[in-house]
C-alpha cells in the first residue's frame, strides 16, 4: 500500500481532509477528572531556521573543531563531558546539567537529505513521516497523531502556543491554539452584550466564552503573583516569557502537551553575534519553564527542543555557517535522566562527514521523540512505528527518563 494512503487511512483523513476543523469546539478545563495521559508533561519546541548543533554542544575535545571554525570557538564555554563543552551563552543552564535535568543529543536529524531547504526540512520534522512529504495535505503532525491514539482527550490536553503555526500539533485530535499576545480587553458592559448576542448561536457562544476565559485566566495569574519579568529579563525576552508563562500555567492544570517554536537560528553570518539572542531565548525558556512550573510539575516534565537540520561543520566566509545535515537536540526537565550527551558521535574527520561538509547524522530525531513518548505515556512500540512515525525503526531504548 502506498505509504501516504496508509497514513491517511490511519488518521481517518482519507476522504475529508479539507473538512476537518483546525481544532474542535471547546470543552472547558476540569470537565474530565483523570487526565487520560497521566501526570507527565511533554513540551516540544521547534527551533526554526536550523540551529547549529556544533555551536550548541561543541566537540571541543577534537582539535579539528578549532580548525574548522576558528571564529566560532574563540570564546570557550563550560565543560560538559571532558570532550563536549556548552556554548558560553548557555552557562546559566549548568546547574541544571549538574542536577541531571539537562541533556543533549548530537549528530541527529530527520531522514531529510541533500536539499537543505528550511521549508521542506521543517515540514518533514513536524509531519514525522519520513521522506513521503511533498503531499501538503497529510498535514497532521506527529504530536497530533500521538494524541489521536489516546481516547478521552479534551481540547485542553494539548496547546499549540504562539502565533507561528505549529504543524506538529495539527490534525484530527482536539488541540487548542492560543497566542499569548492576544488580548480581549472588554468593558464589563461589552462582555454582557456579547453574551447576549451570542446566546442563540452555539458555535459563537462557545468560542467566545473560551476566548474570554483564556484571556481572563492569563490576566488573573498575572495579577495574582504580580509577575513583573525578573530583573535580568529584557524586552527581547519578554515575548518568550509570555509564551512560557502561558504554557506553564496551562501545564500546571489539565494540559499535558505544549508545543511552540523559537526562531532566529539561520546564522549565515557573524554567528557569534547572531546566535546570541536565540541562545538567550532558549536558556531563558528552559529556566523560566522550570521556575514557573514549580518543583512538582517540573519533576514530571520533559522538554524536547529540535530543529530541521544542522549546519556546515566549517564556518563560511562571513563567520557564519550554512545549511547542513546532522544537528543537535536539547532535552530538559525533572523527568529526564540528563547530564549526558547522547547519540553515537561520528567524528569530524573530513572522511566522516556527510558529503564532506556536514556532521554525519547517526540517529533519527524521530526516534528520540518516540522514546520520550513511550517513556512518558507508555505508548506501544508498534503504534509509534506505524501511526505516529510511519516507517520508523525505534532501535534500542536510550533510557531517557529518570
Amino acid at each position, binding site marked *: 500500500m502506498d505509504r501516504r494512503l496508509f497514513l491517511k487511512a490511519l488518521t481517518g483523513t482519507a476522504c475529508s481532509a479539507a473538512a476537518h476543523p483546525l481544532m474542535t469546539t471547546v470543552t472547558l478545563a476540569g470537565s474530565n477528572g483523570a487526565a487520560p495521559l497521566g501526570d507527565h508533561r511533554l513540551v516540544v519546541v521547534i527551533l526554526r531556521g536550523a540551529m547549529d548543533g556544533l555551536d550548541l554542544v561543541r566537540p571541543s575535545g577534537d582539535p579539528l573543531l578549532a580548525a574548522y571554525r576558528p571564529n566560532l570557538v574563540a570564546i570557550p564555554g563550560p565543560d560538559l563531558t571532558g570532550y563536549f563543552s556548552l556554548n558560553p551563552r548557555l552557562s546559566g543552564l549548568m546547574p541544571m546539567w549538574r542536577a541531571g535535568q539537562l541533556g543533549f543529543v548530537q549528530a541527529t536529524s530527520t531522514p531529510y537529505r541533500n536539499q537543505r531547504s528550511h521549508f521542506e526540512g521543517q515540514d518533514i520534522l513536524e509531519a514525522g513521516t519520513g521522506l513521503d512529504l511533498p503531499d501538503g495535505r497529510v*498535514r497532521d503532525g506527529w504530536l497530533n497523531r500521538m494524541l489521536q491514539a489516546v481516547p478521552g482527550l479534551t481540547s485542553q490536553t494539548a496547546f499549540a502556543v504562539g502565533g507561528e503555526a505549529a504543524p506538529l500539533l495539527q490534525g484530527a485530535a482536539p488541540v487548542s491554539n492560543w497566542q499569548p499576545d*492576544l488580548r480581549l480587553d472588554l*468593558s464589563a458592559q461589552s462582555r454582557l452584550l456579547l453574551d447576549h*448576542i451570542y446566546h442563540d448561536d452555539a458555535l*459563537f457562544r462557545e*468560542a467566545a466564552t473560551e476566548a474570554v476565559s483564556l484571556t481572563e485566566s492569563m490576566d488573573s495569574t498575572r495579577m495574582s503573583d504580580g509577575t513583573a519579568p525578573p530583573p535580568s529579563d529584557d524586552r527581547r525576552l519578554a515575548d518568550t516569557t509570555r509564551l512560557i508563562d502561558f504554557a506553564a500555567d496551562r501545564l500546571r492544570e489539565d494540559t499535558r502537551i505544549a508545543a511552540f517554536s523559537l526562531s532566529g537560528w539561520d546564522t549565515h553570518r557573524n554567528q557569534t553575534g547572531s546566535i546570541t539572542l536565540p541562545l538567550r531565548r532558549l536558556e531563558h525558556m528552559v529556566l523560566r519553564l522550570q521556575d514557573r512550573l514549580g518543583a512538582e510539575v517540573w519533576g514530571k516534565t520533559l522538554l524536547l527542543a529540535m530543529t530541521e537540520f544542522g549546519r556546515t561543520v566549517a564556518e563560511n566566509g562571513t563567520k557564519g555557517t550554512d545549511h547542513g545535515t546532522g544537528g543537535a537536540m536539547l532535552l530538559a526537565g525533572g523527568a529526564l535522566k540528563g547530564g549526558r550527551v547522547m547519540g553515537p558521535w561520528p567524528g569530524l574527520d573530513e572522511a566522516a562527514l556527510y558529503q564532506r561538509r556536514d556532521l554525519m547524522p547517526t540517529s533519527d530525531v524521530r526516534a528520540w521523540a518516540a522514546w520520550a513518548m513511550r517513556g512518558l505515556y507508555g505508548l506501544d512500540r508498534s503504534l509509534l512505528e506505524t501511526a505516529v512515525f510511519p516507517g520508523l525503526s525505534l532501535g534500542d531504548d536510550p533510557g531517557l527518563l529518570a
Partner: protein
Amino acid sequence: MTPDPTSAAFRFGYGLPLPAKAPTDPAAMLAALRGPDVMATTHPGPRMADLTEPMALAASLLKTHRRTQGAEAEAARAQYRQTVAALQTTALNAAKATFARALDAPDGLRERLSWFWADHFTTVPRSRDAAALPAAMVDEAIRPYLTARFADMLKAVMQHPAMLIYLDQTISFGPNSRVGLRRGKGLNENLARELLELHTLGGGYTQTDVTQMAELLTGLTVGKKGPTFDARRAEPGAETVLGTAYEGDTLDAVLRALDDLAAHPATAAHIARKLAVHFVANDPDPGLVNALTSAWQDSGGDLVAVTDRLLTHPAAWNAGQAKARQPFDFLVASLRALGLTGSDVQRMAEGPFRRMILQPMAAMGQPWQAPPGPDGWPEAPEAWITPEGMASRITWAMEVPGRLVTPLPDPTALMARALGPNASDRLHWAVPRSENIREGVGLVLASPEFNRR
C-alpha cells in the same frame, strides 16, 4: 424566482451595503459576470511579464553570492536583497488590489468566484522572490476564464509558473529523458497527484495513474523566459492515465490529457460539490449538487452554465446562514460597512495596511496567501469560529474601526446598513445599550449574523 438583495449580497458577494449598480437578480448577476472585468483594470495586479526578469535576476544574484567571496559576494547579496524587496512590494500591492477589488466591485460575484477558483487551484509562494506569483496566476489563469470552459482554466493554471513552481513540477524530470539520465534526476509526483486529487477527479485513480501522469507532465517547466515544454526533460514513450494512452513527448499530449480529465464525470461531481459547499452550506442540498453536476456535464464544463444553475437553483437561496465568513470576507465586509473604498485601501501605507489588515487577518487564522496546504482554506465554520479566531475578530471589531474612520458611524445606523433584515432581535436590543460608539460598532461587526453568510 426573485431572490432578495440581502441574500444575494451575503451569499454571492461581500455583503451590504451593495455598491452602486450592483446586480441582485440572477440574470443581471450573470450578465455582469459575462461583461468586462472592470476591476482588473481599475486595480491592476502583477503580470508574469513584469516578474520573470526580476525573479531570474534574483536567482542569478543568489548564485553569484554563493559562488564568490568578499566584496563581489557582498555586492551580489545587496542587489539580491533589493530585487527581492521590490518583488515583495509588488506582492503587497497585489494584496491591496485584492481588497480594493472586493470593496469596489459592483459584481461581487466575480470577486467571490475568483477567490473560489484561486483556492481550488491553491498556490503558495515557496520563496521570497516568488511572493507575487499567486496574484499573477489569479489575473492570468483564473479571472480571464471565469466564463470559459473549465478545461481552459485548467490548462492555463497548469502552465502557469505559480503552479509549476509551487507543486515542484520544475524539479520533475523523466528518469529516462536526456536530462534525467545525464544529471541522474527523476520524477516528482507532487503536481500530478494534486492534479488528480484536488484539481480534477477528487478520487478514483490509482498510484499508477499518478506516476503515469507525472511522467506525462515531465517536460512542462519554467524556463528563463517563462513556462515552456522542454522535450529533453520529458519521459520518452506513451503514458496511460485512467486507461487512455497519450502518445508523443509533447505539450499537445499533456493538453489532451488535461482535456480528458476536465471532461471526466468525477471532475464534474467533485467541483459541483465544492461550489455548493463554498457558496451555500457545508452539507449542501443533494439536489443542488446534482443540478450543478448535470449543468457541468450537459455543457461540457461551461462555467457560465454551471454558475447560471447555481444562481437559479432554489436551494442556493434558502434561508439561513450556514457558512462563516472567512477572515478575508469578514475584513472586506467590515471595511465596506464602514464606508471605505478601494482607493482608501490603495492609499494606505505599508505599515498601517499590515498592522490593521494583514496581521489581524493572520491572527484570525488566515495568513495572507499562506493556506496550510494545496487543498486551500477549510470550509467548515468550526475551522474559523474558534476561541483564537473570535478573540481576534472581536478585538478587531472593537479597536480598528476607530483608527480607520473618523467619526465612527452611529452603531444603529451601521447595523441597518450592514445587516439589513438579517439583524437579529438580540442585536437590536444590544447595540443601543453599548456604553459608547466604539463598542457599539464592535458589537455589530462581531455579531454572529455579520460573521456568517
